[in-house]
């Protein structure tokens, strides 16, 4: 359910030149900044002294692989992956609801794992292939979980639906026939307001039975 930091190869691990600040680098920077109290100058200046790459606060070039395509943009380092997807590239399947990792409406896949796109910076998500709900329908054909959502009326207003579809797909890829407990665990990161859980439960059961 959560992005495992060690599993996620950060761009800086293999390409210091082009990429952003990894979380590990960031920790290093802030650690040093904290260790040098009361020194004049912005944290970025301090970071520069450590030799760590510094980006921003202005826009910097970024490059992404989203649903198998390359996207380039000039973005501020503070832009989240979700905002980059939605506002910069107009890939709007992932929804902005809570914008703080509470509801799962913005769930995307990075290396097959579910990630809340609102809780990761765009700059951190470079060079790792990102999959959004738009890519789950392959060549115009619905994925079995999408078909099951349709068959079991698992969407009402539909605003949470893309997040649920992505989470369900990730679960079924990892556990083709999930137990009730496994469903409980894998689906605990997504919320719905209209009350479509009954349909979602039936949709999961339909795919688990037939196989994806």
């Amino acid at each position, binding site marked *: 359910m959560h992005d495992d930091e060690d599993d996620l190869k950060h761009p800086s691990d293999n390409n210091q030149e082009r990429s952003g600040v990894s979380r590990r680098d960031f920790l290093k920077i802030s650690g040093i900044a904290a260790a040098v109290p009361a020194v004049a100058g912005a944290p970025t200046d301090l970071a520069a002294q450590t030799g760590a790459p510094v980006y921003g606060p202005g826009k910097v070039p970024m490059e992404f692989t989203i649903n198998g395509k390359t996207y380039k943009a000039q973005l*501020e380092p*503070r*832009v989240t992956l979700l*905002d980059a997807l*939605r*506002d910069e590239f*107009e890939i*709007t*399947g*992932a*929804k*902005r*609801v*809570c*914008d*703080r990792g*509470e*509801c799962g*409406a913005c769930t995307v896949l990075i290396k097959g794992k579910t990630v809340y796109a609102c809780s990761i910076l765009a700059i951190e998500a470079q060079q790792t292939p990102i999959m*959004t*709900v*738009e890519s*789950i*329908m392959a060549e115009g054909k*619905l994925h079995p979980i*999408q078909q099951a*959502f*349709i*068959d079991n*009326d*698992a*969407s*009402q*207003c*539909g*605003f*949470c*639906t*893309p997040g649920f*579809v992505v989470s369900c797909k990730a679960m079924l890829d990892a556990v083709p026939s999930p137990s009730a407990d496994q*469903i*409980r665990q894998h*689906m*605990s990161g*997504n*919320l*719905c*307001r*209209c*009350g*479509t*859980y*009954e*349909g*979602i*439960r039936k949709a999961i059961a339909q795919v688990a039975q037939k196989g994806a």
Partner: protein
Amino acid sequence: MADYGWPKAEDRSLIGKRTTRVDAPAKVSGQAKYTYDTHRPGMLYGKIVRCPYAKAKIVSIDTSAAEKLAGVKAVHVIQKVGSTVQWAGDEVVAIAAVDERVADDAARLVKIQYQKMPHFVSDAEPPKGAGDTAGPMSEDDIDDAISNQMPDQQLIEYLGTHGVTFKADADYFKQVKEWGYPDPVIEAIRKAQFHEVKGGGGHSNYQRAAAITQGEGAKALATADVVSDGLYGASAITHCCLESHGSISEWTEPDKLFVHMSTQNVSGIPGQMAEPLKIPAANIRVHQDHIGGGFGSKFSPDRWGVATAEISKKADGKPVRIMLERDTELEIAGMRPSAFARVKVGAKKDGTIVAWQSDSWGTGGPGGGGMPPIPYVFNIANQEKNHTAIKTNQGPARAWRAPSHPQAAAITMCALEDCAAKLEMDPVEFFLKNLDLAKPRTEIYREELGIASDLMGWKQKWQPRGKNRSGNIAHGLGLSMHTWGGRGHNSDCDFTINPDGSVEIKLGSQDLGTGTRTSIMVVAADTLGIPLDQIKLFIGDSTYPVSGGSGGSTTIGGVSSSTRRAAVDARDALFAKVAPALNVQPDQLEAVSGNIRVKGDSSRSLSWKDACSKIGAMPITSHGKNPDRAKPPDLTNSGVGGVQMAEVQVDVDTGIVQVKKMVAVQDCGLIINLKTAESQCYGALIMGISYALFEEKIMDPVTGRMLNPNMQFYRLAGLNDIPELVVHMMTGKGYDERGVIGLGEPPVISPGAAIANAVANALGVRVPFLPLTPDRVLAALQQNAKKGAA
């Protein structure tokens, strides 16, 4: 006269069957575009600076630094200096910038000085004897009313009836004119009668809103063998639409506005924006493809919606998008009023209810609010009811699915269940005993109670209060009943059959996720005898024929009726064109299974396509309306009955309530689409579990702000909180012939009461208020233990 009536059961090809939602593929693939997803060319991003105080006067506003920031395109003051803010999070200044980050930065540069004023956010029980009756208005009262967006007409009427406490002079009128008071209101103040109020006048937050006596009133309690006495209620909750409120406005010409808005009221928005923008409604076009939830909170453009248009004008008409942030959405964009009551119910030994006495209170924000319809469903002969409305700075109330009914059910059904417990009666028997009081739906409820009992296994499972305990786990069953109106809103529908056989339908309606699109197409396809995919439906634009806002469970009645009438007229026009080719009179034709054929002789038939080729060059067009007295019968009806039962288990050590099973038995007349109708009920049960156990708008008395404006602490039920759900729709004889009745409200009314009753049955103790959080459960157990010890 054409026969507009609904087809007989055996003639229905799609109506009443399970039809898959037509927009489901778009929703599951992320292709469905919501207002929040819409990008307009050159779009700017808006941000609103909000007041952090629950009540304050704006002393000064300095936007100069924000205006100078690179990337800021326009700054617009929404509430001017001198205005009184009535709740935390109210709009003061709007900013439009090239992106959201710049808009955020600019918002931080706006300097606003406030004069803080005392606020009040408590909806606890009013002190004895508290409460003003309605009286004349002071200058502050009028300012409060205007800040609180009280409708002008209502304010004018109030001023006419109750007068004012002050003598307005020329300076006053000059000032209020500057503040933007509407001219008719100023005129009403001028004409209002002056009443001298001694001692500064009453400005209590408590307002006596109702005092009603029916029959013998509370005196009849003396004739009862048993009187139960308890405290009940439901806390204020929010709508928490996943797509927050918001819109994109752009001026396509100096006096023409194009708006994308997340709204339940596409046709109704232009009229509401016309007045503040001072342009004709005809110059405003509103569009919406999909909406991410409304639940009653999205009927108006709201001040922030009007602000997008105003700030777009300042930014050379460029599109400006403002969507509310999540915290703001929860703080100000939707609140279901709270309602609480002390209730006494008197009954005879045999279970006959004789009297009801209640002292209720609650808040609907600065307006106070009214008494919920108690006693609910059961019209008890002798009643005495007092209600105190509490005016608070909690933020404005909005209609939440079945306004006032879930609260009324929580108060009434729990009070009645307590009375049954005191009589040591099974509540199902107690309800059955008193069903005569539930006229005119007595027989519907009787049938539903029987079905629900069977589906729940009530007879096998039910035990008297507090008797079903294994270790620290207490088990219980509870029930509730509800009702709602319906009918259909005003709806107009344009219908076209083209010579190539394609069909187009246009309505200015909207699909909230209830399945409106699918239902319209089902009605049309059933009437024409063609498959759904031959129909193109256009909704969600104010340039289409006017269809009402989606509220009060009136949409399905409105759109199904207007569509049916239009489709019947279009079909009959087609019959007239086709009849000569088949050598019969038009009234001898029927449209079945993709063919137009002679009744009783299927060998004489034309395929739909061939039939339509007889139309000629010009398409067939028709127009349907609801209501339409010129074209009987009325295709809709009103007044449904529903019964729900809940099974729970409660951990008496932790106070955690778990729902194990819920049963909903629901009548809604003729069902258009059984699949989405059932989904409405499942959804309502789930939403009901959510407000029964978790949801509460918690206010901080010190700051006057909401303490949990996020989705971590304003908790919605998750998949793991949902038990076995059983939905049974009442269909067939006795129900179908009633006509179409809406389903958005009814099934969401009872879950809170049914679950609360199940918890009382499990524990042997009443937990008074929803949500039934662990602290409330433990407090009730503790209080009971103390009582036992004393």
